[in-house]
């Protein structure tokens, strides 16, 4: 692999990592600023799962190893699974508990 190729791969990987970090930032801002439980969950699960995918993709590119890439993919899938189920449970609990949901429920 020539020098040019390496730096190109590193550039792509770095952009993916930065983009992933931005999605995490957006998700965190949503978690802190959104008005109720459902909107906050929406921000967390959507933005963070995409952020995790981008970070995993960036790290996989940097590692240049199929085994590491497959492990990172597994980590992303597991994170997706955990986020989905826990968000579902929290939303369910919030639906039952009226005090947790304000009247300003957005279209999540």
């Amino acid at each position: 692999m020539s020098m040019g190729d390496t730096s190109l791969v590193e550039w792509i990987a770095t952009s993916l990592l930065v983009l992933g970090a931005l999605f995490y930032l957006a998700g965190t801002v949503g978690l802190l600023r959104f008005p109720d439980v459902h909107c906050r969950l929406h921000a967390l699960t959507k933005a963070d799962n995409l952020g995790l995918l981008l970070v995993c993709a960036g790290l996989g590119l940097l590692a240049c190893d199929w085994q590491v890439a497959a492990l990172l993919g597994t980590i992303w899938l597991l994170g997706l699974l955990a986020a989905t189920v826990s968000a579902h449970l929290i939303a369910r609990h919030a639906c039952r508990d009226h005090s947790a949901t304000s009247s300003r429920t957005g279209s999540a």
Partner: protein
Amino acid sequence: MNLAVDSLIGLGLVALAWQAISGRSLFRGIVMFVVFGLTMALAWARMGAPDLALAEAAIGAGVTGALMLVALRRLVQLHPDQPAEPKRARSRLALPIALLAASLVAVIGLGAVSVDREPGRAGVAVMDNLAETGLSNPITGVLLVFRNLDTLLEVAVLLAAFLAALAVFRDQEQAPAPPRGDLPLVGALLAIIVPLTILVSVHLLLAGSHEPGGAFQAGAVLAAGGVLLILAGRLQPASGMPLATALPLVLGLLVFSVIGLAMMLTGAPLLALPGLWAVYLIEAAMMISIALTLVLLFAGASGLRRERP
């Protein structure tokens, strides 16, 4: 760059520790404690101690956090009318004690830094003799071969702690089982995660001989699967302790002591292990005992029974 990351982790640890104990709310403190544990695991990993990082993440953050949450729930159940956040007046001794503790830490820290660090003889001896054990992970070598009396006593301490907790469980009535609803997502999650926890714990156990891992980490991961099963209502706390529970509970201690004492009959010193197979056997038994102890502590009961969904 590295210095920036390390300083961020260090400052974050201090801030998280303060948040965990400053006591605005018990629940908040527990969450901060878990985040502290995860950050601490990151710090161990940065310092090149992946074994400690694994143990900190699995036991320090995961299992201890779950135990604290279950303790908080019991506290609320026991005194539902009492506000969860009692207003405590700060003792007049708090500030002097804090200052004394801080100066003690500072003196010890400065002393530790100023000492010329020659590599200790014990570490060199371990690395020189590691090849004879057949293990290539020096941590497992120390835990299971060179200092295995300490490990045996740790397992005994865990059992003693569980027995002490059992005395407390006896005093209070069983907490009512959490309501089980039709939660198809939870069933799907369990179907994927529980086999994976078994796979990962067996991997950690086997990997322990040549890379980071070992019985304690494997046991904690296995216990996490059990905790999930309890949370989902598939395992319910039960009273009484059948042999099927009692035997795995003491299996680690039993196998370790029997092998160690049997070797004495052949003239070997106390707890000299006959070979690599004994290390694996003891680690597997310890993993089962550690996992069951942690799960029972979480359940707050002396036994478990299965509950069909």
